[in-house]
């Protein structure tokens, strides 16, 4: 008798998701589907709004990474104005994006994933959360809280508030940075760097315990896509896109983000609201690629800051080829945090960072604009078309999580085939199915937060739909 296992909701990720596993008569997993069960509708309800409202509106896509949307959207609006924004404005946005990357990575690593990593995948579910970690590993939990606070505090200092700041605008930002705030941020960086290095230290040791997970956590060849600067080094605010294959060959070197539609296609599947972007020249699903920390570190020449480069070399030395297991997203996230803190320091040390001319003004000079930047989870693309008065007539948002959709689905199948077999449905097995999704740090809704305590129901159903067995937790 074939069966279906449903994991609903999937916990400790951002937003609401559901997993369905289809088992054949022998109890072997035949298919796995990751459903994103909510529709946000931003692309549609933005129609008719003035383009200059888009940064603020689209920031509401996500309460965790509003800054990423602010930046991609502001860049799309810059393109509609057809202006080159003042260099200081670009650098201020860059610092804001780095702060965002640090706080979001801290959330993903410490709050959502570290319970699995420190307590083990088989630990009781009621213990696998950040609050329990505060008892068992207080210094690690404290580092996690401090790093998230650091990122959020920088955002607050620069942009006025932590969540949904309205600071970036078409043409630049709305306020210059002053010396006092800059010095305050610079003063916080050394402690953040130390906390990230401590974390990298224990995580490297802990990784050895997870060789089985590394082997099957979305460990397969795909392409990787991410942003690089003009020297081919890691870059998160502005640059060109690079695509590499699983052997590390650069198959597209300097793609212009504004022409994404020529090389990125979006497929749809009936079981989820999330689209499946793919690299057009290889078709769907052959053109499946991954984005985000792992992709960025796989494809960049190096990081471009001293401490992060040491870690990057060590990371890449694990394999002569690009690292293919998504388990390595965790370590990549930590290295990126280190890089972000160092880069932030470098950009803020520039004398020009206090320049007062922070915005270019213009009216509509182009009826179309694309803005792309690296969000914590990967490349984020906003694309708008406007009428001659600047009202949005069409919008397309490619959210970072979407790029990883096909890889996440395949990853779930791989893990499920390895761990879920037959009648026995164990908590630890299901947690591994969820944990592979968490390595990608998907942001599904992207504004609701589910942490450990949410109920999880597994239903085993007969082909006629009748419930054979139910496992419930929470």
């Amino acid at each position, binding site marked *: 008798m074939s069966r279906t296992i449903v994991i609903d909701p999937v916990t400790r990720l951002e937003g609401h998701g559901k997993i369905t596993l289809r088992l054949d008569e022998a109890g072997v997993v035949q298919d796995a589907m990751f459903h994103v069960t909510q529709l946000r509708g931003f692309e549609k309800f933005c129609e008719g709004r*003035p383009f200059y*409202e888009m940064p603020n*509106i689209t920031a509401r896509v996500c309460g965790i990474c509003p800054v990423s949307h602010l930046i991609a959207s502001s860049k799309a609006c810059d393109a509609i104005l057809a202006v080159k924004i003042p260099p200081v404005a670009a650098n201020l946005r860059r610092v804001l994006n780095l702060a965002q990357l640090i706080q979001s990575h801290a959330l993903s690593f410490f709050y959502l994933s570290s319970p699995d990593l420190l307590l083990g995948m088989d630990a009781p579910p009621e213990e696998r959360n950040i609050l329990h970690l505060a008892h068992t590993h207080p210094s690690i939990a404290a580092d996690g809280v401090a790093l998230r606070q650091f990122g959020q505090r920088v955002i607050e200092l620069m942009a006025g508030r932590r969540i949904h700041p309205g600071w970036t605008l078409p043409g630049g930002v*709305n306020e210059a940075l002053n010396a006092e705030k800059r010095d305050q941020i610079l003063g916080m960086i050394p402690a953040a760097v130390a906390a990230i290095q401590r974390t990298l230290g224990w995580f490297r040791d802990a990784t050895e315990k997870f060789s089985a997970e590394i082997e099957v956590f979305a460990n397969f060849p795909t392409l990787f896509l991410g942003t690089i600067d003009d020297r081919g080094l890691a870059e998160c605010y502005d640059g060109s896109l690079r695509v590499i294959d699983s052997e590390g060959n650069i198959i597209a070197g300097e793609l212009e983000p504004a022409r994404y539609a020529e090389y990125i296609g979006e497929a749809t599947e009936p079981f989820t609201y999330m689209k499946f972007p793919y690299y057009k020249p290889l078709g769907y699903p052959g053109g499946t690629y991954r984005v985000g920390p792992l992709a960025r570190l796989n494809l960049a020449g190096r990081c471009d800051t001293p401490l992060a480069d040491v870690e990057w070399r060590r990371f890449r030395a694990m394999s002569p080829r690009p690292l293919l297991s998504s388990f390595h997203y965790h370590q990549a996230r930590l290295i990126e945090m280190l890089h972000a803190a160092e880069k932030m320091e470098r950009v803020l040390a520039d004398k020009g960072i206090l320049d007062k001319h922070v915005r270019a*003004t213009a009216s509509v000079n182009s009826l179309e604009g694309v803005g792309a930047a690296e969000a914590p989870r990967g490349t984020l693309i906003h694309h708008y078309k406007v009428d001659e*008065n600047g009202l949005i007539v069409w919008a397309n948002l490619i959210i970072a999580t979407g790029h990883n959709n096909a890889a996440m689905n395949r990853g779930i199948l791989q893990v499920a085939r390895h761990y879920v077999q037959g009648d026995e449905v164990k908590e630890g097995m299901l947690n591994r199915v969820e944990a592979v999704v968490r390595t990608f740090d998907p942001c599904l809704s992207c504004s609701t937060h589910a942490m450990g305590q949410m109920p999880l129901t597994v239903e085993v159903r007969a082909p006629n739909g009748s419930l054979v067995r139910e496992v419930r937790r929470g």
Partner: protein
Amino acid sequence: MSPEANIRTLTIDEVDVSARADQTILEAAREHNIAIPTLCHLEGLSEVGACRLCLVEVKGARRLLPACVTRVEEGMEVTTHSPKIDRYRTMVLELFFAERNHVCSVCVANGNCELQSLALRLGMTHVEIPYQYPQLPVDASHPRFTVDHNRCVLCTRCVRVCGEIEGANTWGVMGRGAQSLVITDLKEPWGQSETCTSCGKCVQVCPTGALFEKNRAGMRTQKHPEFLPYLRIMREGEP
């Protein structure tokens, strides 16, 4: 008539006050630092009594009266705050919020909006009336300004300032009731209006984000309607 004969004495919230016979309850109250919430009222413009937020109780009157257009009378006993009045005012606010699409979080006027401030001040915690979600247009044809009817409360401040102070009479009102729209000229796109002088007074007096400056969107800027009384004095001084 001697100046003394022109004075009326009345009580507002049990305080004895005196006012000129041509003053309204609102003017008398404000002169005595008694707060009455208003939205369509703006010092320097004529009164229309459109928003109904300044409703007060007058002893002997069978219904609540708008303080902005009710003249003081000898011996009047006015109450500006009571559970009934508070309930009516909150309901009026809820009607405003339900009637059009007021989404503060993404509004250009967020933090500098009179409707938002009133909701906070009067303790409007939620809206019980079902939202109407009308599909209303945005006119961004003017090079500097935009009108977003989704955020308009039909206070007609723009209409009055344009006619009474600027003298352009560009703004008017079309339609009836909740379907009314403020329009420029004969509903031409604002950018094609032949009468608009682009002076921007309408933008400065608009209490919400319905009228705003394109380049200031997202700049957290305050509007400045306080210039009006001075402009009015200047106009009245003209021959």
